[in-house]
């Protein structure tokens, strides 16, 4: 998979540089709103163009080739060297197009969505900065640079979640996101260190991707497993997998475009990308791969169940995102790296669409996010409704839609590699997904509007600047999946073939295409079932859910309480740590250590105070001491 032709270029640096320029512009000319609102999306748009151009060059090149732009030597210390270098191979090509493309649409959308926010320039500054970091991440030819992007996106997510900083919970959510990500990063860094030292060869320590791929054979099995698992921790942090997913739902505190861009389409897929990027390491450790698969499946199911009962639009979408990311990780775990990336792409389309749609709804409902306050928006916001429907169908896996192909490819691989249990989990999750997504759809757009009248009467469709991106994304959500048809259909898995030079050809074992089709049928039926159930619950007999909830109270509580994971962590980690810190400060630091230090000093002074009273002013007492001393000296001389 390494080797391949290297096409040196000197334009790739432009791709991240453009958004960065936009960022600088935004912070420097902070008060020129018009300029910023034009420049920020433009920067990303141009970046997209450049990226496209680069990708076209790549396509013309023989398979397995890669564009490399070695900008400058960054960290060079002794045997360690890390250059700021960018690469575009099939994998990063896909990612860069997703990021810039979807990113561009969301920028445009934001122009409308944030129009009334007084700190819009700051918003676009952050957004551009994010694009910069994200592009750094996907284009990096060196894992250290990748890590820079990795942390950079974390920073931006921190800033954007806490964008409306006046509200404490937003700031808290931002902090939570960053810290939890840092936990992942610790694993990531350790993984990188171990990797670097284990692939060290002829006196060079390097984290160049090429170098790693070249020397990965040097990894002892145990080492490989260790590296892989550490990297998995990192991925779990970024891509919100168990047990580190907790930050993502809170991250919804940020403006909706942010949720769409960062917490759905791009950043959260960084973990997936990273594992795909380093799949050679994982391949070297079957055990690690198993773990990855299980984590993915578990996450998918776990998050889906929570999504069933959420009433906040964005929360539902957030948990669905977690769940979908689970699918991707599952794909990685079963070795279907291409499929994972495929799902990354489709998911980017329809999840961005859904979020933006939700944003449009919230925008129209003047900030309301609770579905219990919505309903019957079908007529009031037609465009939103239609596009949202498309999105729902796509995620639910309606045949022909994007999600359909990507999801089923994943499940097929799960089955194909003999992970039948995981396949079952995946399939069931698919059903759940259909259910909760349609639940959301019905609650939002069907029935009567349940909002307060004053809200109700200026519910309105969003302006074109917002709806156009919706439409485009809708289109993508439909056709986006057609690049990766099952084996044997028309052009088959073109996408997979394109990625193959990078991610390798996953083997579907002895089962052929027929099996895949069969599986598709099953999952489709499950999805339909889920959708129908939702229709029954929320359109036919709306009373039913309450009854059910009342019947299965414990289960319902558990789900509404999100399994009380946050509380659990709080009690298990946060509070003890704070308590420990206080103990260390008050007891260890101030009482013990400082006490000892000051104690010595005090002891000396006190002695001084004590002994000075020997000097009682009586000259004859002095003489006695004198005599004593004399006797002592004399007797010493006599005894020796």
């Amino acid at each position, binding site marked *: 998979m390494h080797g391949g032709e290297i096409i040196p270029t000197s334009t790739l640096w432009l791709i991240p540089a453009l958004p960065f320029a936009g960022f600088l512009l935004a912070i420097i000319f902070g008060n020129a709103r018009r300029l910023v609102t034009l420049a920020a999306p433009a920067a990303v748009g141009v970046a997209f163009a450049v990226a496209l151009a680069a990708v076209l060059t790549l396509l013309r090149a023989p398979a397995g080739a890669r564009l490399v732009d070695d900008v400058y030597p960054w960290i060079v210390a002794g045997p360690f060297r890390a250059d700021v270098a960018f690469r575009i191979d099939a994998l990063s090509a896909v990612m860069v197009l997703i990021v810039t493309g979807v990113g561009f649409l969301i920028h445009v959308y934001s122009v409308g969505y944030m129009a009334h926010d007084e700190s819009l320039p700051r918003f676009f500054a952050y957004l551009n900065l994010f694009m910069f970091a994200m592009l750094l991440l996907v284009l990096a030819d060196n894992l250290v640079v990748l890590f820079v992007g990795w942390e950079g996106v974390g920073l931006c997510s921190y800033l954007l979640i806490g964008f409306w900083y006046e509200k404490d919970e937003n700031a808290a959510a931002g902090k939570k996101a960053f810290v939890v990500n840092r936990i992942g990063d610790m694993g990531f860094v350790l993984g990188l260190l171990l990797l670097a030292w284990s692939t060290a060869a002829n006196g060079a320590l390097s984290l160049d991707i090429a170098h790693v791929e070249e020397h990965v054979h040097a990894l002892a099995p145990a080492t490989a497993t260790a590296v892989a698992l550490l990297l998995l921790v990192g991925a779990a942090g970024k891509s919100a997998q168990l047990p580190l997913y907790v930050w993502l739902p809170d991250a919804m505190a940020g403006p909706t475009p942010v949720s769409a861009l960062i917490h759905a389409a791009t950043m959260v897929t960084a973990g997936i990308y990273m594992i795909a990027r380093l799949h050679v390491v994982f391949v070297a450790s079957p055990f690690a791969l198993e773990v990855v698969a299980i984590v993915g499946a578990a996450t998918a199911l776990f998050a889906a169940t929570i999504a069933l009962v959420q009433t906040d639009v964005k929360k539902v979408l957030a948990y669905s995102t977690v769940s979908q990311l689970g699918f991707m990780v599952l794909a990685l775990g079963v070795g279907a790296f291409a499929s994972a990336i495929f799902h990354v792409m489709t998911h980017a389309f329809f999840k961005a669409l859904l979020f933006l749609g939700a944003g449009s709804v919230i925008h129209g409902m003047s900030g309301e996010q609770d579905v219990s306050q919505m309903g019957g928006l079908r007529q009031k916001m037609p465009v939103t409704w239609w596009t949202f429907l498309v999105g729902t169908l796509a995620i639910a896996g309606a045949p022909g839609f994007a999600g359909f192909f990507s999801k089923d490819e994943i499940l097929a691989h799960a089955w194909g590699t003999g992970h039948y249990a995981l396949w079952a989990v995946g399939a069931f999750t698919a059903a759940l997904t259909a259910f909760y997504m349609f639940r959301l759809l019905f609650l939002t757009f069907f029935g009567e509007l349940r909002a307060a009248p004053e809200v109700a009467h200026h519910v309105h469709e969003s302006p074109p600047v917002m709806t156009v991106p919706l439409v485009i994304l809708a289109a993508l959500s439909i056709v986006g999946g057609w690049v990766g048809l099952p084996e044997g259909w028309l052009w088959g898995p073109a996408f997979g073939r394109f990625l193959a030079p990078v991610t390798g050809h996953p083997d579907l074992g002895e089962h052929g295409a027929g099996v895949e089709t069969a599986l598709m049928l099953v999952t489709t039926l499950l999805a339909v079932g889920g959708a129908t159930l939702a229709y029954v619950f929320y359109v036919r007999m709306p009373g039913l859910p309450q009854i059910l909830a009342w019947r299965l109270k414990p289960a319902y509580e558990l789900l509404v309480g999100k399994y009380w994971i946050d509380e659990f962590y709080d009690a298990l980690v946060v509070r003890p740590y704070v308590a420990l810190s206080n103990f260390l400060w008050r007891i260890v630091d101030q009482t013990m250590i400082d006490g000892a230090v000051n104690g010595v000093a005090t002891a000396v002074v006190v002695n001084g105070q004590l002994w000075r009273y020997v000097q009682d002013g009586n*000259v004859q007492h002095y003489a*006695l001491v004198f005599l004593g001393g004399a006797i002592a000296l004399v007797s010493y001389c006599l005894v020796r």
Partner: protein
Amino acid sequence: MVPTSWYLALSAVLFAIGAIGVLVRRNIIVVFMAIELMLNAVNLTFVAFARQLGTIDGQVIVFFVMTVAAAEAAVGLAIIIAAFRNRPTVNADELAVLRW
């Protein structure tokens, strides 16, 4: 002939007695006397050694010791008088303004 050691021992005893006097007497003048006693004890030592060594030096030294003793006595007594003018007492243990 009495061995020199005996004289020396005798002088040691006298010296010690003088020292004790310095310590235990309350009246400063008497304390001075005790000091004189110590000096005389030392003189005895010198003379004894001079005899033992058959040299005259020891005796000459005694002469100097006497002079010093005289000088000290004069000064010491002068000090007592000066102090007595300010505070009519010659009790050693009442000299305790300066302490601690």
